[in-house]
């Protein structure tokens, strides 16, 4: 018998779209959106773009755009990538400058060109890696039970909030590239 592939699985588009729309609306209304100056855009389907402010220990400020692809949402977390704000996509190595340098943030990895995705061994892509991103599960991770993405408990906010914290001092130090 073939060994089942690890990682996320497909979700019916109508369900993924409904979940994305619902949680985009919750996210826009959340008190932290105003508190931290977050800005969000939704394409009406499964794609949410988050504009997040970053601050370094030296006082430098910046803004990064993060694509939250809800293709498998909310059975699985959003596929999360830092993207070029003009194209809203990520091409390696052209778009390296649109990635932040984040150092020392616990249980967080940002890999500009990761290879080793379980569902697509030939894929080389950006991997934002923690247990509230889909890439984490598609790169052979097994979280502790209390850390695992849990539909109905975790939602877009949960992912965005970790990204926001990673983009603050002392972790954020500048841009790649």
């Amino acid at each position, binding site marked *: 018998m073939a060994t089942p592939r690890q990682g996320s699985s497909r979700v019916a588009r109508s369900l993924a779209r409904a979940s994305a729309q619902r949680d985009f609306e919750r996210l826009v209304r959340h*008190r932290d959106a105003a508190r931290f100056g977050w800005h969000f855009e939704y394409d009406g389907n499964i794609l949410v773009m988050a504009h997040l402010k970053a601050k370094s220990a030296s006082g430098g400020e910046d803004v990064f755009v993060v694509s939250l692809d809800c293709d498998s949402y909310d059975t699985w977390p959003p596929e999360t990538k830092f993207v070029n704000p003009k194209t809203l996509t990520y091409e390696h190595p052209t778009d390296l400058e649109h990635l932040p340098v984040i150092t020392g943030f616990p*249980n967080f990895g940002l890999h500009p060109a*990761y290879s080793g995705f379980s569902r697509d061994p030939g894929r080389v892509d950006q991997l934002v890696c923690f*247990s509230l991103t889909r890439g984490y599960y598609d790169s052979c991770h097994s979280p502790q039970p209390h850390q695992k993405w849990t539909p109905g408990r975790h939602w877009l906010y*949960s992912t965005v909030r970790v990204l926001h914290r990673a983009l603050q*001092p002392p972790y954020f130090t500048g841009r790649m590239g």
Partner: protein
Amino acid sequence: MDTQAAANADTKGHSDFVVIYDDTGADVTISAPAGWKIRKVIEEAYDRLGETPRPGDRVEADGTDLAPYLDLRVKEFIEQGIAPDLTFNIISATGGASIRGRS
């Protein structure tokens, strides 16, 4: 007392702390008497949120770890200006072990 903190304190000496649970985005407002310890504010927040502390949980105020301040009384906490907007975040640990692929 900080202007924002003063605005959150009522005439009976209670101060309103907003506590946000990062895992779920849920929040509660805890009206705390001046004599409560910050630890009590957080315990009350967990209870009102229907959550229990998990391994690795931490509480922050705008990025500042509140662990050193848990035994301060509300009055002292506010006077020291540690969290002027009286907003706390309870942060649960995420998973993120080393990976087998290459980057």
